[in-house]
């Protein structure tokens, strides 16, 4: 359905306005910063993915034969840290959010462009420190940094990794701060809260979590570093300190952090489903408020990671109950997306395939969350491969599917070129199959009792068949992730030029040029229509009226 156009003369846009390294490294243009983020998170994604492949290869056989125990421990630790802090958390907000939030609300830029650039530099400093840490020995505490192992027993580079995450956390806070202020202060005339695309609502909710959760893990990491370096004992059981206090503080951020990853992805999928069903989203206000509800309730459930850690039975009950409260808004979203398809006019372009994949995988991930929130079952399956499978269904099946769907959907806007549709559909299929092959067997492994973070399972060789399946799936998944990178790069040079609105989609970002000019709109747009006005767009004699051109 994507329409290509031939343009003899290239207009001035954000990509060709200036050339040279400094025009990128000193840019304050949110679109260029988004591309800087795109390059850097892709780099970290493939580093994290490489670690994942090594982990899966090690688990092909029960014996620990590929790498040594310490190496394996570092591999899963750094896989987790890189993927969580340097890929998933910045992924959609810092790339697609950075690119689209100002355009979708009709602003020229984010409220604080220089702070936006600063947050990329902080990310890079944190990332370089992480890289240095990995190259000079790495860290083996698990991404969770549990004390007293991290403070008193691990002899790896805990402090360096902690500082790297601390700095990256600042970058995340500043991104969230920029979004909140931008969404409050920079909306174009007529862009009321009820006309905002749901992508914006999702990013607003995400920013709340980034702002209020991240500082807590920042100070927690500082406390771990202080205990390790300065011997200021806060969690030290030798002094009478409580290691569980660390877990409380850690999960106060790290549970909501899951919603930092999944909420923007939900926003992307909402846009895609609306566009490719040619419909207004079913229950707009319910979808919008469920984002906020997820952000708030997300802060009430953290101790469900600690049901067997030694917390009181009563508080376990409270946290289990509240965990079901946060499951509800997610369920409401799934039902509303499904209802949106009803009586639509559904197109099967690659972004929509990713959205379908998201729906399926997120549903499985969410429903297995019900198992984990049920206290009696959690005792058995926590810290096993059941949990590993569950959170990969949410973070990879959910967040990464949404991220890739969004990259395809907005690629014509970002690059001004069309990606090859056939290859893209193939890649979506490969990712979906590879993902399920990798992670579905892990649910079974988990219920059978295979603990996570084991590099050697020669004591229980009966687990091998499922592990082999999982490793095979990881290989397929790896191919599925390489493909888009290759054809996106290819399309930058050889792709057909994209029209301003190749999908005939609603939303202000499609009413400006592809790629957009530096200040997004030539004149400030005035919004006079509701979000997702596909009825008007598909009217027989609809003429696209450029606003802000």
């Amino acid at each position, binding site marked *: 359905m994507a329409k290509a156009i031939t343009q003899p003369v290239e207009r001035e846009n954000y990509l060709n306005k200036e050339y040279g390294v400094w025009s990128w490294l000193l840019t304050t243009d949110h679109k260029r910063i988004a591309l800087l983020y795109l390059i850097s998170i892709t780099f970290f994604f493939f580093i994290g993915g490489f670690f994942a492949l090594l982990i899966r290869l090690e688990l092909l056989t029960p014996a620990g034969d590929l790498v040594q*125990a310490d190496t394996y*421990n570092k591999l899963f630790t750094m896989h987790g840290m890189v993927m969580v802090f340097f890929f998933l958390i910045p992924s959609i907000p810092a790339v697609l959010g950075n690119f689209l939030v100002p355009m979708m609300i009709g602003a020229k830029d984010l409220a604080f462009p220089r702070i936006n650039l600063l947050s990329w530099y902080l990310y890079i400093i944190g990332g370089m420190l992480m890289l240095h840490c990995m190259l000079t020995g790495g860290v*083996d505490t*698990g991404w*969770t940094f*549990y004390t*007293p*192992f991290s403070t008193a*027993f691990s002899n790896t580079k805990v402090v360096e990794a902690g500082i790297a995450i601390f700095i990256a956390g600042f970058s995340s806070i500043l991104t969230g701060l920029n979004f909140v202020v931008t969404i409050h202060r920079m909306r174009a005339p007529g862009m009321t809260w009820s006309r905002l695309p749901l992508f914006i609502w999702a990013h607003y909710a995400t920013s709340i979590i980034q702002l209020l959760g991240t500082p807590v893990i920042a100070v927690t990491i500082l406390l771990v570093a202080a205990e390790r370096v300065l011997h200021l004992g806060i969690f030290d*059981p030798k002094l009478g300190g409580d*290691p569980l206090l660390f877990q409380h503080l850690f999960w106060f951020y790290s549970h909501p952090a899951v919603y930092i990853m999944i909420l923007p992805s939900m926003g992307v999928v909402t846009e895609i489903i609306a566009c490719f069903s*040619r*419909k*207004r989203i079913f*229950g*707009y*206000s319910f979808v919008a408020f469920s984002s906020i509800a997820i952000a708030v309730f997300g802060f009430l459930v953290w101790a469900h990671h600690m*049901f*067997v*850690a*030694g917390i009181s*039975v009563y508080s*376990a009950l409270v946290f*289990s109950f509240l965990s*079901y409260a946060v*499951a*509800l808004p997610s369920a409401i979203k799934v*039902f*509303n997306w*499904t209802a949106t*398809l009803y*009586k*639509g*006019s*559904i197109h*099967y372009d690659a972004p929509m395939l990713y959205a*379908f994949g998201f729906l*399926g995988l997120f*549903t499985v991930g969410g*429903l297995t969350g*019900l*198992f984990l*929130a*049920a*206290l*009696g*079952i959690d*005792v*058995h399956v*926590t*810290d096993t491969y059941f949990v590993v499978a569950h959170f990969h269904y949410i973070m990879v099946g959910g967040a990464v599917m949404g991220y890739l769907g969004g990259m395809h959907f907005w690629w014509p806007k970002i690059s001004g070129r069309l990606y090859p549709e056939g290859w893209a559909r193939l890649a979506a299929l490969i990712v979906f199959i590879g993902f399920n092959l990798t992670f579905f067997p892990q649910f079974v492994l988990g219920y059978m*009792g295979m*603990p*996570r973070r084991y590099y050697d*399972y020669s*004591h*229980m060789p009966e687990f091998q068949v499922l592990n082999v399946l999982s490793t095979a799936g990881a290989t397929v998944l790896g191919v599925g992730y390489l493909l888009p990178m290759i054809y996106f790069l290819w399309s930058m040079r050889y792709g057909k030029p994209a029209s301003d609105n190749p999908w005939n989609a609603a939303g202000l970002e499609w009413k400006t040029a592809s790629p957009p000019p530096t200040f997004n709109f030539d004149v400030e747009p005035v919004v006079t229509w509701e979000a997702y006005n*596909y*009825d008007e767009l*598909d009217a027989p004699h609809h003429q696209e009226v450029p606003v802000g051109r």
Partner: protein
Amino acid sequence: MAAHVDALFIFLLIVTGMMALLVFALVIFFAARFRHRPGVRAEQIEGSHALELTWSIIPLGVFMVIFIWGAVVYFKERTPPTDATEVYVVAKQWMWKVEHAEGQREINELHVPVGRDVKLIMTSQDVIHSFFIPAFRIKQDVLPGRYTVEWFRATKPGTYHLFCAEYCGTQHSGMVGDIVVMEPAQYEAWINGTSTGPLSASGEKIFAELGCSTCHRSDVQGRGPNLQGVYGRPVQLADGRTVTADENYLRECILDPGSKRLKGFQPIMPTFQGLVSEEQVNALVAYIKSISDAQPAMGEKTSAGSRLPQPLNDNERANAQPMEPGLKK
């Protein structure tokens, strides 16, 4: 216990399976039925409050059933029967050290008889570990500096996996072992063949060696409280609070005497932090528990070959009331 967990698990599989199938079927049906056809436009639907309420309230109801069921199972998992056989577990990088009340010590193995409730009283010497027996569907983190407890009742003889489920360093995946469940007669033979005297007896010896008995006298109220019958009772602390004298309380009183001192006693006890090993603390706790009368169903234990001391007679019981206020020396 495994049966309870599995029943809930199967219920959840059915319920969530139905939810998932419903969503998948609808998505696939809509995607096929309403695929784009030239000339056919989508029908705009604003939403429906009735539908939103329906698909909020029905899942919420289902969630509450799951929550309550899960909570009930959890309560069972977390409440050891009072007459359970007690086994002390000390975790360290990277092994499990097990001490039976009868005095046997094992490493990375735990022998238990079939059909008897077994309560594990666990602590760690270094980092956090987690005692996980998949076949019994139980798991509990083992923390440094305090006790955590879990229990099970094996129903079928055999050998089962024991895993450490909380990442604990280099050889985390080597911290595995076996739970050997034996027929009662076999177990009897095993325990008698390897016994070195009950744990409480070695506790008694340590109690004497460390000089505890000079203040904590068993006949009269000494400078420290008489410990006969303390275990399992609510005791009043110097700061006015009342706590139950459970294993963790006894442990804290040995390692940290100042923090939860009994009402009516001077703060004169030195700390034993660093002077006694985890195993010695366990033995002391086992000894103090053995001189308490809060050990119901003693008969079952004796029949199982336990050599725990007999319950106190009435005369001793009269002396064993140290927790009342105003009994200052």
